[in-house]
C-alpha cells in the first residue's frame, strides 16, 4: 500500500509535467520514457481504481515503465472518457475502460461528448466481475424460483448502488426477465445499501458478489444467484442465473483504452505489456480477490467486444427506464 500512496503523490506533479511537455519524440511502438497516466473514471478506492493501481505498480516493477493513476470521476465516467479522447495519442494517456462511459453512457445520455468506439483505441481487455442477488435470510429464500414465488406474493424492495449503476440495471433486468415487480431503492454506492440491508429495512440488494463473501459466510445474507456466465471460483456455492434457467448475464468489465489514432505498433506494445502484467500469478491472485475473472483478448476482439456490449446493454438500460 505504501508504494501505491507514493505513486499517487506523483500524480499531481506528473500530470503537470505532462501538460507542460510537448509530445515527446519517440520511436514508433515504444514508450517515450515519460510516465504513463492511467485515467480512472471513479474516485480512488473502487475496483476500477484498484485494478489501475495494480497495473501501474507492475508496469513499473516488471517493465520499468513509470505509471501513475489519475482519478477523474464525474458524470458517470463521461468526464474521464471525454478528457482522454482529447489527449495526444502517443500512449502516455490511457483510460481504464469500463461499462460506465462506454456501454452505459452512450444509451443512457442524450448526448455524450465523445465517440465510444471510434474515438478510442480499445487496446486490451482485462477481466470482469459479476453482481449477484442477495436476500434477507429471514425470508427463507434460497433459489431464484422461490424468489419469484415470494415476489409475486409480496412486493419486495431492493437496494442498488444508485440509479444507472450496474446493480440497478441488473435489478431491472431480473424483474423484467422473471416477470415480477419490486421496489427499487437507490443508494450512493453499495455500502450504505448494505448498511440498510443489515438494519433490516431492505428485503434484498444487488452488488458485486465476491465483495460480499463475508456476509454470505456469516449468514447475514443469502446470495441466490450470480449474473456471471459461470460460477465464480471464489464463491463455488453460489449458482448462476443461467443454471437456474434464467438467461441473465451482466458483467462489470474493465480493460485498457487510449485516444484514437494511436500508432499500431504502440497499441501492440501496450497490449502485450498489459497481458504480460496480468499473466503474473501475483497479479492474478489479487484480481481473483477483487472478484475479477481475467481473460486474454486480442485488440480486435476487445474493440468488437466493446461495440457488442453497447448493443447488449442498450435494451436493459431502456427497460430500466434510465435513458434520458
Amino acid at each position, binding site marked *: *500500500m505504501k508504494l501505491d*500512496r*507514493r505513486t*499517487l*503523490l506523483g500524480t*499531481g506533479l506528473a*500530470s503537470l509535467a505532462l501538460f507542460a511537455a510537448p509530445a515527446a519524440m519517440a520511436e514508433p511502438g515504444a514508450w517515450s520514457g515519460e510516465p504513463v497516466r492511467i485515467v480512472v473514471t471513479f*474516485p*480512488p*478506492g*473502487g475496483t476500477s481504481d484498484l485494478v489501475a493501481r495494480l497495473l501501474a505498480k507492475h508496469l513499473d516493477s516488471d517493465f520499468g515503465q513509470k505509471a501513475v493513476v*489519475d*482519478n*477523474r*470521476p*464525474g*458524470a*458517470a465516467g*463521461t*468526464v474521464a472518457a*471525454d478528457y482522454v479522447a482529447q489527449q495526444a495519442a502517443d500512449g502516455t494517456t490511457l483510460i481504464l475502460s469500463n461499462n460506465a462511459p462506454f456501454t452505459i453512457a452512450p444509451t443512457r445520455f442524450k448526448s455524450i*461528448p465523445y465517440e465510444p468506439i471510434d474515438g478510442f483505441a480499445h487496446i486490451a481487455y482485462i477481466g470482469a466481475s459479476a453482481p449477484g442477488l442477495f436476500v434477507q435470510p429471514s425470508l427463507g429464500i434460497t433459489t431464484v424460483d422461490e424468489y419469484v414465488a415470494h415476489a409475486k406474493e409480496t*412486493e419486495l*424492495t431492493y437496494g442498488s448502488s*444508485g*440509479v*444507472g449503476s450496474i446493480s440497478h440495471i441488473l435489478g431491472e433486468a431480473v424483474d423484467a426477465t422473471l416477470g415480477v415487480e419490486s*421496489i*427499487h*431503492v*437507490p*443508494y*450512493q*454506492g453499495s*455500502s*450504505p445499501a448494505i*448498511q*440498510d440491508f*443489515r*438494519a*433490516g*429495512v*431492505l428485503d434484498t440488494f444487488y452488488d458485486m458478489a465476491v465483495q460480499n463473501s463475508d456476509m454470505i459466510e456469516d449468514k447475514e445474507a443469502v446470495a441466490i444467484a450470480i449474473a456471471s456466465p459461470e460460477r465464480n471460483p471464489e464463491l463455488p456455492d453460489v449458482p448462476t442465473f443461467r443454471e437456474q434457467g434464467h438467461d441473465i448475464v451482466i458483467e462489470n468489465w474493465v480493460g485498457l483504452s487510449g485516444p484514437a489514432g494511436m500508432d499500431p505498433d504502440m497499441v501492440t506494445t501496450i497490449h502485450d505489456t498489459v497481458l504480460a502484467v496480468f499473466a503474473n500469478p501475483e497479479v492474478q491472485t489479487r484480481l481473483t480477490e477483487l472478484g475479477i475473472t481475467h481473460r486474454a483478448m486480442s485488440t480486435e476482439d476487445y474493440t468488437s467486444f466493446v461495440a457488442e456490449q453497447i448493443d447488449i446493454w442498450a435494451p436493459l438500460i431502456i427497460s430500466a427506464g*434510465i435513458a*434520458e
Partner: protein
Amino acid sequence: MDILASFGQGLLVVLEPQNLMYCFIGVFLGTFIGVLPGIGSMAAIAMILPLTFYLDPTPALVMIAAVFYGAEYGGSTASILMNVPGTPAASITAIEGYQLAKKGRAGVALFSTATASFGGAMIGMVVIAVLSPSLAQLALSFGPADYFAVILLGLIAASAVSNGGALKGIAMVVTGLMLGTIGIDLTTGDLRFTMGIPELRDGVHIVVVAMGLFGVSELIASIRANTGGKATQTIDYNEFYPSKEEWKSLFGPILRGGTIGSFFGALPGTGQTIAAAIAYAVEKRVSPQRKKFGTGVVPGVAVPEAANNSATQTAFIPTLTLGVPGSPPMAIVIGALMIYGITPGPRLLVEEPDMFWGLVASFLVGNIMLLILNVPLIGMWVRLLKIPYKIMYPTIIVLICMGVYSLNNNVFDVWLTLVIGAVGYVMRLFRFEPAPLLLGFVLGPLMEEQLRRTMLLSRGDPMVFLERPISATLIAITVGILVVALYSTAQNRRRARATAKNPQQEGTQA
C-alpha cells in the same frame, strides 16, 4: 473498562511516529489558519485536503481533525488581541477577551482561553469515548426514517437557537438547500438544474461552496477591513498567569461550557458557534461574577472557549457513528473517508476500531500539543498577526485554488469557487450569514435522500415516521423544541412591543 482498553489501543495508534507527525502538522496548521482573522477551519481543512489523499486513512483523519480543533485555539488569539475573531465561534470570546486586552491583561485572557480550550476538549473527548460505542450499537438498527428524524431535529434545533435575522437565516438555509439539489437526482437519475454543464452533473462539491463562502469571500472582506499588522496589543509576560482567584474561577465555566458544548456539538446542525453563544448566555446568568460580564472577566473568555472546543470534538459523534455530518467541516471529513472506501456509520467502530480510537486518542495528544503551542509559544502567533496581508492573502488564495482543483482535477471547480466567493461577498455586505447556507447545503440533500428512501420503503405511507420508535421519539423532541422556540419568540415579541410602548422600561430589561 472496555472503553479504557480501546482508548489505550488508540493511544498506541496515535503515538506511531507517522500519526504523531500528521497530528502535529494538523494542529500547527490549524492554529496558523485560526489566528489569521477571517479564515476559519473550513478553509484550513480544504487546503490540506489534497495532502490527505496521499496518506493512509488514519493519519489523514487525525490530521483533518487536528486542523479543525487547532483552528479553534488559534481563533481566540486574534479575537482577543484585535477584536477580530479568527473563527466565527471566537467572536463570543472577543466580547470579554478584547475588554481584558484593553485593560492590559491580554496575556491572562490568552492563557485562560488556552486552558479552557483544553478543558473543554477533554470533556468533549470523554463524551465521545463514552457515547459513541452505545450510539453506534443503537444506530445499527437505524433505518432511513430514523436518519431523517435525526437530521430534522438538528436543523430545527439549529434554527431555534440561532438568534436574530431569522428571515435572512431561513433565506440562506433555503438557498443552501437549492444549491444542494443541483446534479443527478439520486432517486430517479434525472438531472436537476445543471443547465447543460456536464461538470454540474454530480452537483457542486462541498469544498467548492465552503471555499467560496468562507475562503474567498472572507478574504475579500478582510482585505477591505484590515490593512494589516494591527496587533497593537503587546503581551506583558509578567501578567501572563492568572491570579489565584482567577484560576479558581476558571473551573466552573470550563465544566459548564464543556458540557453545553458537548451537547450542541453532537447535535447535527448546531455547531461550535451556537455552542459558544449559548454557553456564554448561560454563564452570564449563573456565574458568581455575572454582574461584571461585558467588562472583561476571565470566566467570560473561558466559557465560550470550553464550549466551542468540546463541540468541536463531539461533532465527530454523529459524523462517525451515523454518517450524518454534525457541521460543514464534518461533511469534508465524511468525504475524505469515502475516498478510502470507508463509509462512516454504525459499523465504523467495529470495522475500523484502530482508526476510530486512534482519532479519539489523538484529541488528547493534539490538545496537549496545542497547549504547548499556545501557551509558551503564543508570542510566535502574535507576531504572525503582523505579517502584511498583501503577502498572506494571495498565498492563501493560491492554496485554496490548488485545494479546489485537486478535488476532481478540474478547472471548472476553481472558477465556480471564485464566482461563489464573489456572490458570497455581496451577500455579506447585505448581512446574509454564510453559515446557514452551508448547513442547508450539507444537510439538505442528505435529508431529501433519506426522506425519499423512507417513502419508497414504506410504499408512500408517511405514518412510518411515527411507527418506528426511534424516529417517533426524535420527532416528538423536535416538535417540543419547535413549540418552545415559537413560544419564546412570541414572548420576546410581546416584550419588545411592550418596551416600545414604554421606552423608559428599556433600562431594566437589559
